């Protein structure tokens, strides 16, 4: 007959195994897209799930569990960017298998330009765009990961896209049109111009850009955080 602690441990292991099986790929993907290093991503994966194992009692139910994990991974990643790169002994085997296995993809043309423009955005805005475009999270889900309101996410995401478009426009590359606001109502307002700048051909010989660099080398690797960069509602 199992004692209560032993039964409790079995149940705990079962819960963790389920959580890990469902979410190790998304968390590993999240970390790899932002570090471009599978070994570092393995350490981040290990530390995220170790935290989850220790705080399993706080695990939210259902699909929210994944968002909880993204939130933990985000904090681990923030520490990583500040230079606190703890090598996880737990991930030794995984790291050994991953060594040399990954080359960040090369992008060219339009995607390369997006990568360049993204690099010029502040880290917070890049991350917002990535949670939406790469992890496929909607406003409510991003709000849960970042711990702010859904409205704030909507506004900030819009600002980030506007900023990105401005960055793309400022280099003169304008295959990207800003959406025309037919719904604008201000009668005193003059008709807006349709496109910023002339459409540009990509010149021959433009070197391709590693897009992973856009998030893998954030503007502030190892930088201490600035107050006011922490997300508030």
């Amino acid at each position, binding site marked *: 007959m199992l004692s209560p602690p032993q039964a409790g441990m079995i149940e705990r292991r079962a819960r963790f195994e389920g959580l890990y099986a469902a979410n190790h790929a998304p968390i590993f993907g999240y970390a790899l897209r932002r570090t471009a290093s599978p070994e570092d991503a393995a350490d981040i994966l290990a530390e995220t799930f170790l935290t989850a194992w220790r705080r399993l009692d706080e695990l939210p139910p259902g699909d929210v569990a994944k968002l909880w994990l993204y939130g933990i991974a985000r904090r681990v990643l923030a520490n990583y960017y500040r230079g606190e790169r703890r090598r996880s002994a737990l991930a030794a*085997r*995984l790291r050994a298998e991953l060594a040399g296995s990954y080359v960040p993809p090369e992008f060219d043309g339009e995607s390369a330009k997006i990568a360049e423009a993204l690099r010029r955005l502040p880290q917070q805005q890049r991350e917002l765009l990535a949670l939406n475009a790469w992890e496929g999270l909607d406003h409510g889900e991003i709000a849960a990961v970042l*711990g702010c309101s859904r409205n704030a996410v909507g506004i900030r995401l819009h600002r980030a896209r506007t900023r990105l478009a401005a960055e793309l426009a400022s280099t003169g590359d304008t295959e990207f049109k800003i959406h025309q606001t037919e719904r604008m109502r201000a009668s005193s307002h003059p008709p807006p111009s*349709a496109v910023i700048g002339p459409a540009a051909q990509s010149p021959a010989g433009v070197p391709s850009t590693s897009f992973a660099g856009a998030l893998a080398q954030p503007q502030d690797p190892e930088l201490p955080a600035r107050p006011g960069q922490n997300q508030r509602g």
Partner: protein
Amino acid sequence: MPYLDLSRTAPVTDADAAGLASPAAFTDLASQIMATPVPGARSRARWTDAIRAGLLAPRSAGAHLRRRLALLTVVPVVLAALAAFLVTVANRSDNGPNSAAAIEVMSFIKKNGTITVIIKNLYADTTWYNADLARHHLDITLHLDPTPPSLVGFIGVITSDATAAGHDNEIKPINTPGSCHLSGTECQIGFTVPVDFQGKVDMWIGRPARPGEHYLEAGSAFNRGEPLHGLADQIFGHPLSEVLPLLAQHNITVAQCRYNDPRPHSNATCDPATMPGTWYVNDVIPWAPNQVLLMIQSEPYPASGSFFTPGEPLYGLRNLIVGHQVSEVLPLLAQHNVTVAQCLIDGTDTEAGGTCDPSNMPGNWYIRDVSVYGGSQAIAIIGRDKPAPRTGH
């Protein structure tokens, strides 16, 4: 809405990422994690130490674990009760969160509906603070982070749950941040919080850095109380060949260097010893006492960023610009030799934005933001309605 479709530029999908290693390797990690001890409420500090040791040297932590488990399983009476007894005994005699040493970590004074929390030991383990706060019915996770002098005592809220969100500004520092002297002994660091505060908050407070530490939160190198206060105009816009001797004069070492615009395929990190004298400073970030991190670039203007930062033409004028009408702001910009090269309409989360003609912006619209286009040219982001006041962004 997504007229810019970024999803196809993701470097790797989750499935492809997971495919880089064998399933067995991933499963092995899970097994390793499950072999680490689970902290119980009263033995948390001890387990945290064991886990940290496990991260660095699995064998020694494993041996430590096996000894403890062996001790527990040999006992021939009701396992749970005796295990609890042993854990309590262990804590009384060591430095667990219930020990005499831990109780000295913070002081709590309740008065007039407010609790004043003063942190007496600035270097304790986070779990000790949490245990103490939990005893006072506050679900606050507290980190004390080394910061430059102007941020000592400053409170940064990292996350709060839905119940606490919006109320986390009820947590206030007990002293003006930056009013502590570096010695720390005459300084009180802490916060006040309403007695009935609800919800879960994760926050940090700045504390002085110990020798060998570097700052976890930085602030500005030009804040009052920092060594470079008042020197911004001798740094921004001047080449490194002039800036570096100035820093040396003030006993500041450049500990770290970063390129403001990391080129493709290259590291963002530059070597402080080989920074080109013809380059410029984009930003100065406190790194550790008398050490800074410099962000450098080849041009005097920021590649992207804000006209509101030190050294920029609109420094200090943000409050006169954002939220004000176009007709008020344009003369102010002209006064500071900033011209608007581009105009964008700030949409809402239901309406997309658009573009506008910078030479014909409606005077009664409001400026939402001003960002750099290039040189002394700006992008003005405008909206029809007055923006809501910022609650902290």
